[in-house]
């Protein structure tokens, strides 16, 4: 593998330097590094960050290869600046056994665009009845550490307690999709002023908050690690804040869309805006932004959820929940957090790379930009803007809620262990 020199780049938005990458690691950092025999990329002052890590991706393979495959999903990830993604377990078959998680893990390795870490199901078939073979998945080649029934809530308190306890043996974490099922039966969107006017079944915030409150208490009681997926309400943020103050081992994630969009968009009845948990109100958007800024919410997780056209090009009530996220995540975070001064570039690196890697127990991701560290890097042009065209995204599906939006900041280059997985300027060989 030939060496690469990144000229004129600003690690974490700091001073301009050159970065030499050789043998998959950062070989040198300094001014006017020698460029003999190296491939030169002129960063023109772009920001250099550790490659992003997404704790919450749906790759749809196996089962719904018409919506996304590991190949298209990781292509979208690379274009979005990600060097590792955690693939959720709700595939068909469900990733509740060593066989399925190893298959997904191997596909990711063979394709090589982005590390794929399968998330194991908490319960067999995501049915919420019986623990899946968590230990076997942990011991498998895929080394599963994050377990989630995402898409479904582990609503049974006893099953949740057992799961939290069981994963302590291999330092796993349970990622909860907090949604009290009885309170959300048939729910279509946030319960509030807009739902009452539109006549769409409401998904009340208390259905999220009551599970979060319960699970925080369970995690505290059994002294285990709890991760909360896609926190969407002001009340949830407050619950996490209080729990962290008490020292509970809880981490939480927020999606780009909950940082930027509100339930007012449901007025279009366009299923592009149908997602679970639903888009909330502007007060909730303010609260999750504040939570991400002060670290109450640890990470941005995309909840990248591709859906085939026919599952969105229909009535709101028939449509599937979910939105594309991988390729727009950085730009939306910049728009919501950096442009507003709530986060600096180091903060972006922390919430999109360092902390998610820690939560997911990855040792080679989310590392500092220092000599000797693995070259999992992303180069971002902070001044560029781009228009989201769903037809042009890496994903096989087109269900972006940001279609037509002009977004700030553009990924210029993504490196996975020193190898280009995406470049805005150059064609990348696989």
């Amino acid at each position, binding site marked *: 593998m030939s060496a690469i020199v990144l000229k004129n780049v600003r690690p974490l938005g700091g001073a301009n330097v050159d970065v030499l990458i050789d043998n998959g690691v950062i070989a040198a950092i300094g001014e006017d590094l020698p460029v003999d025999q190296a491939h030169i990329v002129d960063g023109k002052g772009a920001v250099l960050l550790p490659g992003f890590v997404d704790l919450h991706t749906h790759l749809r393979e196996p089962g719904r290869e018409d919506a996304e495959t590991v190949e298209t999903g990781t292509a979208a990830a690379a274009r979005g600046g990600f060097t590792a993604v955690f693939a959720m377990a709700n595939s068909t078959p469900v990733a509740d056994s060593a066989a399925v998680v190893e298959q997904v893990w191997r596909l990711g390795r063979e394709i090589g665009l982005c590390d794929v870490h399968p998330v194991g199901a908490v319960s067999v078939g995501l049915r919420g009845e019986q623990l899946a073979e968590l230990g076997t998945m942990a011991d498998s080649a895929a080394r599963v550490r994050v377990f989630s029934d995402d898409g479904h809530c582990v609503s049974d308190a006893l099953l949740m307690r057992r799961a939290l306890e069981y994963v302590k043996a291999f330092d796993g974490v349970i990622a909860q999709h907090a949604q009290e099922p009885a309170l959300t039966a048939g729910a279509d969107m946030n*319960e509030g*002023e807009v739902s009452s006017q539109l*006549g*769409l079944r409401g998904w009340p915030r208390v259905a999220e908050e009551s599970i979060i409150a319960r699970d925080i208490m369970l995690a505290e009681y059994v002294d285990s690690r709890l991760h909360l997926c896609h926190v969407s309400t002001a009340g949830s943020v407050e619950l996490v804040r209080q729990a962290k103050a008490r020292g509970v081992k809880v981490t939480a994630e927020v999606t780009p869309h909950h940082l930027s969009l509100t339930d007012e968009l449901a007025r279009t*009845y*366009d299923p592009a805006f149908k997602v679970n948990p639903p888009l909330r109100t502007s007060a909730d958007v303010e609260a999750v932004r504040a939570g991400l800024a002060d670290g109450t919410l640890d990470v941005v997780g995309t909840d990248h959820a591709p859906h085939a056209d026919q599952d969105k090009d*229909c009535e709101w009530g*028939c449509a599937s929940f979910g939105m594309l996220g991988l390729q727009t995540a950085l730009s939306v975070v910049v728009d919501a957090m950096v442009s507003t001064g709530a986060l600096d570039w180091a903060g972006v690196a922390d919430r999109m790379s360092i902390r998610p890697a820690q939560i997911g127990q990855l040792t080679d991701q989310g590392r500092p930009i220092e000599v000797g560290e693995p070259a999992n890097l992303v180069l971002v042009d902070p001044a560029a803007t781009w228009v989201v065209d769903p037809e042009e995204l890496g994903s096989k599906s087109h269900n972006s809620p940001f279609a037509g939006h002009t977004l700030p900041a553009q990924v210029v280059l993504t490196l996975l262990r020193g190898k280009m997985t995406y470049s805005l300027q150059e064609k990348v060989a696989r």
Partner: protein
Amino acid sequence: MNTHMKAHLLSTTDLDREAALQILDTAEELARVSDMPIKKMPTLRGRTVVNLFFEDSTRTRISFEAAAKRLSADVINFSAKGSSVSKGESLKDTALTLAAMGADAVVIRHSMSGAPHRLAHADWMDAHVINAGDGTHEHPTQALLDAFTLRQHLGDHITASAEGSTGLDGLHVAIVGDVLHSRVARSNVHLLNTLGAKVTVVAPPTLMPLHTDNWPCEGSYSLDEVLPNVDAVMMLRVQHERMDGGFFPSAREYSQRYGLTVQRAATMPDHAIVMHPGPMNRGLEIESRVADSPRSVIVDQVRNGVSVRMAVLYLLLGGSESALGDGAA
């Protein structure tokens, strides 16, 4: 004089006072057609109106059918019950089919809120869309016929307005029952308010929508407190699935607390009228003798439905395309 209607009728929130009055005034003229020996006008000759019903509603469908036929439109009834949610044809493919058949207007009834909105705005076809009831969202022509009926019966109690046409100014209308799931209530709250009436929605707390700060109406849990002060009471149908849904303990308790009994109706002012969008559950939300009493204008509501729907069809389809609001293209 230009019409004020937009290219579609999806929600009563789309209608300003002028547009709403234009529909009522037009309907009033068209009501005379039903008295004519030949109940037909050539106005929509050569136009095709499709009744696209994903949900059974014989009453609404025949009302639209009669309206379209009295205006000489060709009417195609497309009963698609059950085919959307199940494995049948998608709404999109149905729309493409209707577009290929040259539908000028599609009257749609659908169990899902917003389906008419999707049909109108999803680039699947360019026909005018009339919402004939969508899920728990709206049923605008029902509200229009209710407004028409209120104006017809309560003229003496309406405060005169400066404009040439009469609204519903000064009236107090109670809408009673399952407001949470009622498309009739949603459409009426907005339309009646637009026309100047005061609206009070009455429901048990479990059937009262939350977060209604932006609804132009008042709310009450007590029918008995509201009835002595109303000019009209609109009783909503209690759907059978709500009775099993735990929204209230039993049908008996519901009718004891929220049913319009003879005794309760007697507390209303003498001039006050009783309305119901039908079909009625006699003995549940309304006692049979109240439904058949002189106060009841339920049969007039049905009759007025045809005139109001004729007016809507004429104002949407009767003129040139270019004149029809911003949604026409």
